């Protein structure tokens, strides 16, 4: 179980500022932020506290099982963002 950031996200990062476990990316200090289309929640790290839901100024964050039908695929999108980031980091390491 985890929270998921869906299509309305405007990358305001208020969510990230209140997240107690720092599971939201990319943050404003990351080089990636300026071209970020949206932010993502790492389902492997999210502790399901819901603090981000209140903080989000566009109500873009949902409990996974409560995602509106049209945004149901965002659970996969959020997870995939972190998987590809971890893969990319692994590939960069020298063999």
């Amino acid at each position, binding site marked *: 179980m985890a929270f998921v950031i869906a*299509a*309305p*996200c*405007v*990358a*305001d*990062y*208020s969510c990230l500022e209140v997240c107690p476990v720092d599971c939201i990316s990319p943050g*404003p200090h990351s080089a990636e*932020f*300026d*071209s*970020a*289309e*949206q932010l993502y929640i790492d389902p492997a790290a999210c502790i399901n506290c819901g603090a981000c839901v209140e903080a*989000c*100024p*566009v*109500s*873009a964050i949902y409990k996974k099982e409560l995602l509106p039908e*049209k945004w149901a*695929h965002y659970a996969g*999108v959020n997870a*995939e*963002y972190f998987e*590809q*980031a971890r893969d*990319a980091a692994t590939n960069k390491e020298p063999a």
Partner: protein
Amino acid sequence: MSANDLRVAIVGAGPAGLYAAGHLLHQHDVTVNIDLIDRLPTPFGLVRAGVAPDHPEKKLVIDRLFDFYLDHPRVRFFGNVELGTDITHEDLDARYDAVIYAVGASDDVSLGIPGEDLPGSHSARDFVGWYNGHPDFRDLRFDLSGKRAVIIGNGNVALDVARILTLGPRNLSQTEIADHALAALTRSAIEEVIILGRRGPEHAAFNNPEIEEFADLEGIDVEVEGVDFDGLSEQPVWNVRRKLKTLKQLAEAPSGLQEKRIILRFMTAPVAISGGAKVAGLKTITKTASGEQANTIETGLVLRCVGYRGAAVLGLPFDDARCTIPNEHGRVIDPNAASSGVYVTGWIKRGPKGVIGTNKKCALETVHCLLEDAKAGRLERSAPEIEGLEALLKQRKSDWVATDDWRRIDMAERTNGADQERPRVKISSWNELLQMATS
């Protein structure tokens, strides 16, 4: 006011200006009083006049964030005040410890092709301003009597425009789309919208959430042309892979089932707009595996969505190549003037890119510079004996719109909206806006 207090003017009440105001209000060791100046009688910039009416979620940023800044006791709104006409940079420079320009990008990139100025060829700014009830654009007329419209460019604005042209009154009538636009679109004969992209889908300018939405458009087929998905090389960037996956799904979905369709045509460059008294067609060249293919698309409506660009601000330096005000982390660099305390944030600082929240980080950087300069004593403090902005405007522009005046407009729009089960019914003429403000 203590010596530690700061008086800051912010020009532009869009997301860039409001995020800057928010950061200034959040300071604990310095009290900042802010005057927020806008050319329009209405605040919120492109959140009100840019974000498409069928994306009401994004406009929540007003209710859930920007309203708190606007209504803050240390913030005053001065709407209907135009820089260069009603007040000058010098007026502000003399009255405030610092001035932040958050004026956005008020010009358009042009195509530089023949026929661009024919009636029937418009910029995205015109069309978007028109359907969003921006008072400068409400009297424009768009020829929606033909069956086909062509959009040049495939960024998020292009997708917005394509949706608004095809969604139809069933989907639009419950939104805050301007009434004049809803009426015109209800009579529209347009059945097909072609979106042209010069390059391949791996370079598409739209964002993922926006293109993914195209899979669910009610009553609209979406087709993808000019893409050999099997021939595309493996993309190193995940964002791009996400886009290609969506496009492939759109391309493979059954088509020809709906009344209307949007065609995403890639590898196709516009060459010339043809027509006599008005637009009759668009000549294009499509790159294919076997060479170049010329084509003329029959259409009476061409909308250029190829980007915005910043315009110079009177009294400030301007970088003609980048179309921004030259700055270092938000501090304006002016080789010809010793003036301190001038800052920029948002699109006029970094160019027209990013989403709403990109401005939050951008404004924080600018505000940090401003506070650093204040602490170091580098700001030329405003002279206390000079009359304030209010007194100046009483002489020059007595019908400026204050926060309470805007709230009258806001309340009227929301009340009328509630009657029609819409978020608001926009007031879109200058006269009506100013009348409501003073009612």
